[in-house]
């Protein structure tokens, strides 16, 4: 479960990196519609997908130990916990309580890719 941008910054401090560098490397949200994003890290490839009813993360290739992570904010305003898997993980919501924001990452301590479908 879990990690926020704040924690990522703390980790950056702990490793001697500039916090601003972590923020600067954050992928920017795409347009207000379904979107996908491919992330490469340490030779591994992760794919993310975000729409109003489905959000998923998948480790496509590579031998990294980092899992695929996803969490979402629903139209009701509730934020889910983080869910992770070694390969593929998805969250589906109903059209009556759709996903308004999803967050995706490739390891626990990482600034997530954020999308608002």
């Amino acid at each position, binding site marked *: *479960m*879990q*990690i*926020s*941008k*704040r*924690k990522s*910054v*703390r*980790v950056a*401090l*702990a490793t001697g990196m500039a*916090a601003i560098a972590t923020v600067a490397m954050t992928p920017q949200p795409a347009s207000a519609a379904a979107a996908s994003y491919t992330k490469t890290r340490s030779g591994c490839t992760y794919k993310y997908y975000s729409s109003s009813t489905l959000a998923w993360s998948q480790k496509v290739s590579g031998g990294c130990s980092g899992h695929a992570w996803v*969490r*979402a*904010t*629903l139209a*009701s*305003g*509730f*934020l*889910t*916990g*983080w*869910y992770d*898997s070694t*390969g*593929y*993980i*998805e*969250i*589906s*919501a*109903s059209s009556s*309580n759709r996903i308004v*924001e999803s*967050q995706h990452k490739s390891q*626990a*301590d990482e600034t997530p890719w954020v999308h608002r479908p």
Partner: protein
Amino acid sequence: MWRMPARTLGVLTSVLLLLGPAACRSEGEGPPVPPSSAGPRVSEDEIAAGIEWQRQLIAKGTVGKTEFESAAARVQACLTPFQVEVRNEGWDPVEQQKILLLFRNLAMDQDTLGRLTDQCQIAYLEQVADAYKRGRPPRMTTKLHAAVVECLRRRDIAVDNAPIDPFAFQQALPEAQWHTLSSCVDESAKELYPNLSLVKFP
């Protein structure tokens, strides 16, 4: 021998890094430098105390549903001072390894909400949840499993002896059929558990 999880170690390391300069500062060097982060946060003392509470709980022996539910209640109590509403939707029927918790404070930005919920879960739930999972493989509820198998049959996907472990179930099918499996889990779970806000798979 108990080993401190890497993430816990990270939190404690950060505490030391934040406190260290203040502790070493001599007189006349100006006011203490505030933490680089602003906004509400769970105190490092509470996080450390919560992690110790988890360690002691786990050290007592088997972590069962009672202990998990106790930890979830502490997460809720941890978030109460921040006016964060916690919705407990019960055990996840797809894998039965965790309680589905959702968090809301409509007056709070999502980054702050995410940080606070992360901190409270690190303090009171993370290690208990990991301990609960050990020795309890993920498994669908019996009625969800049966509904998913029937759904797949209706879509001409035969699954004899389908694993009850959702991860194994997925791996038992070719990747081309994963979307159909996900759809069947989603439809079946929403029908059987209409109060769930979301369905997580696998």
